[in-house]
């Protein structure tokens, strides 16, 4: 089996408790890091090729480097645990099974960047995980791993766990910051492209995904070369793939980031139910354009997936077998984006809702042939014209279903019924 990093001890009873976590080497990285120069740690993170695993795949060490060093303002760390991309559930496991791993990564990141206050924004539905994380923060405080003068180093850090309230848009980092400030989660206008200089409370801010930060202690312990060697040329380490849909064993699978899609489905997730053939796969959450059965040999790192015309996104893999109606799935996804568009930008607010109306009309057998091209036109007009990437994230997958499975849409229009459902 390939080497696991983040999920290695998930089956150890009580691993979420501080004592058990320490028995398995927990907080050794913090002890080591507090004796190192911050710049040296940042260099390790850069050379490890750790990339942002929330969806963007941007080098994490570079992102930390964007924060201005000599500023009179306080700096903040914000952890994005607002896991809302359909098909994604890895952070739920990381928060539930290894909260101290995240806290350890937060301490190291804060030490490197000179941060003394960190917020973890967790989606509101994850009540269990929020309670677990809060308990872990209290444990860490009690053992001087958080708070004043951490382990006698003179460094201090406070952590607040913040409960979201149900809005997909708050996973977008500037929408999340607005939400954390007590506002509706409307993303901020770019530039600046990163909240590094002007973020939370208008102060310099690092924002990273739960999974990204959870990797940090392991890189400090084992070195950049080790981590980089587990991945591909530009994307280091492992990734926690969340696999669902028509597979026998849905769940999370931590694998080298460049693992082929076919291996994830057949060797890890148990293959397709009833041994049916794969029809299509969503490789990185609902926003990633769909892959067809002839693309299963694609590697799952960010660059290979981009070359295949899709994206690594959040690592949420949905497998669909040959009984799946693509019109149905496309309409279902369009409903999600129409519901979650925050309403700030007209092309997205109107585009997602019209796309959804048209696709549902086709699904219900009331569509017209020109609706197909109309939906394509709407999607193309949404892309690149909004404050954030939600519009692109809605348009890209819808376009992929309309173009790759156009015949199914035409059949629905011509016959007012589904040929896939009819033949199964």
């Amino acid at each position, binding site marked *: 089996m390939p080497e696991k990093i983040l999920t290695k001890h998930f089956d150890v009873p009580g691993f979420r408790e501080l004592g058990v976590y320490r028995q398995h080497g927990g907080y050794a990285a913090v002890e080591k890091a507090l004796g190192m120069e911050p710049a040296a740690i940042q260099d390790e993170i850069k050379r490890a090729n750790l990339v942002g695993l929330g969806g963007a795949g941007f080098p994490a060490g570079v992102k930390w480097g964007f924060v201005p060093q000599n500023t009179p303002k*306080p700096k903040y760390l914000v952890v994005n645990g607002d*896991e*809302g*991309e*359909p*098909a*994604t*559930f890895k*952070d*739920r496991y990381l928060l539930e099974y290894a909260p101290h791993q995240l806290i350890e990564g937060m301490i190291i990141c804060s030490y490197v960047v000179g941060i003394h*206050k960190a917020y973890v924004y967790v*989606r*509101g*539905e*994850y*009540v*269990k995980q929020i*309670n*677990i994380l809060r*308990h872990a923060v209290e444990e860490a405080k009690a053992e001087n791993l958080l708070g004043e003068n951490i382990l006698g180093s003179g460094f201090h850090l406070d952590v*607040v766990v*913040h*409960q*979201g*309230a*149900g*809005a*997909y848009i708050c996973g977008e980092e500037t929408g999340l910051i607005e*939400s*954390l*400030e*007590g*506002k*509706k*989660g409307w993303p901020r206008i770019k530039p600046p492209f990163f909240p590094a200089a002007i973020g939370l*409370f208008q102060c310099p801010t690092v924002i990273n995904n739960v999974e990204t930060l959870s990797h940090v202690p392991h890189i400090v312990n084992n070195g950049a070369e080790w981590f980089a060697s587990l991945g591909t040329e530009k994307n280091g380490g492992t990734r926690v793939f*969340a*696999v*669902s*849909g*028509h597979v026998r064993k*849905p*769940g*999370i699978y931590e694998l080298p980031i460049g693992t082929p899609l076919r291996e994830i489905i057949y060797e890890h997730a148990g293959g397709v139910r009833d041994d049916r053939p794969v029809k299509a796969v*969503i490789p990185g959450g*609902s926003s990633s354009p769909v892959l067809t059965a002839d693309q299963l040999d694609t590697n799952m790192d960010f660059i290979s997936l981009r070359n295949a015309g899709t994206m690594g996104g959040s690592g*949420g893999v*949905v497998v*669909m077998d040959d009984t*799946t109606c693509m019109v*149905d*799935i496309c309409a*279902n*996804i369009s*409903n*999600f984006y129409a*519901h*979650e568009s*925050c309403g700030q930008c007209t092309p997205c607010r109107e585009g997602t809702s019209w796309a959804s109306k048209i696709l549902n009309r086709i699904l219900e057998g009331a569509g017209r042939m020109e609706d197909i091209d109309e939906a394509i036109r709407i999607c193309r007009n949404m892309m690149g014209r909004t404050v954030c990437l939600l519009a692109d994230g809605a348009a890209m997958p819808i376009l992929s279903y309309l173009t790759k499975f156009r015949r199914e849409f035409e059949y629905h229009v011509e016959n007012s019924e589904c040929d896939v459902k009819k033949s199964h």
Partner: protein
Amino acid sequence: MTKFKSLVGQYEETRAALLPVLHLAQRAFAQITPEVEEYIADLMQLPPVKVHEVFTFYTLYRKKPSGKHVIRLCKTLSCHLLGAESIREHLCKKIGLHNGSDTTEDGRFTLELVECMGACELAPMMQIDERYYGPLTPEKVDAIIDGLTDEPAADEVN
């Protein structure tokens, strides 16, 4: 009030505590009415409209009086692929929900159809109060509903 003050104290700016304060108010008052919004606005020294805009933006704040148990059934992607719609039909029959209403006549249940809750490996899944349940079958739904008490459903951490 002590809870309110400790919540506000965690943040650099008072306003940042608004989401947690609304969560707290929802637990304390069951229903966030315009009067409750004004009360919060007063406490936090915000214009009432700023509270109202946040309250209405987020789906977890209930806009209508709800039943004793709030059931959120996921309708997105993997749950949809694996039969969320037939679970919905069964669930409605089981709890006695009809005529397009979202709350049962006895006031015991409110059913919301919601977007992805981040538990696709449990598809089709639902959340009752604070707890996740899945993968659901009609038989499991019956057992879960029959097993509920008057207390909110919550996860045990073990």
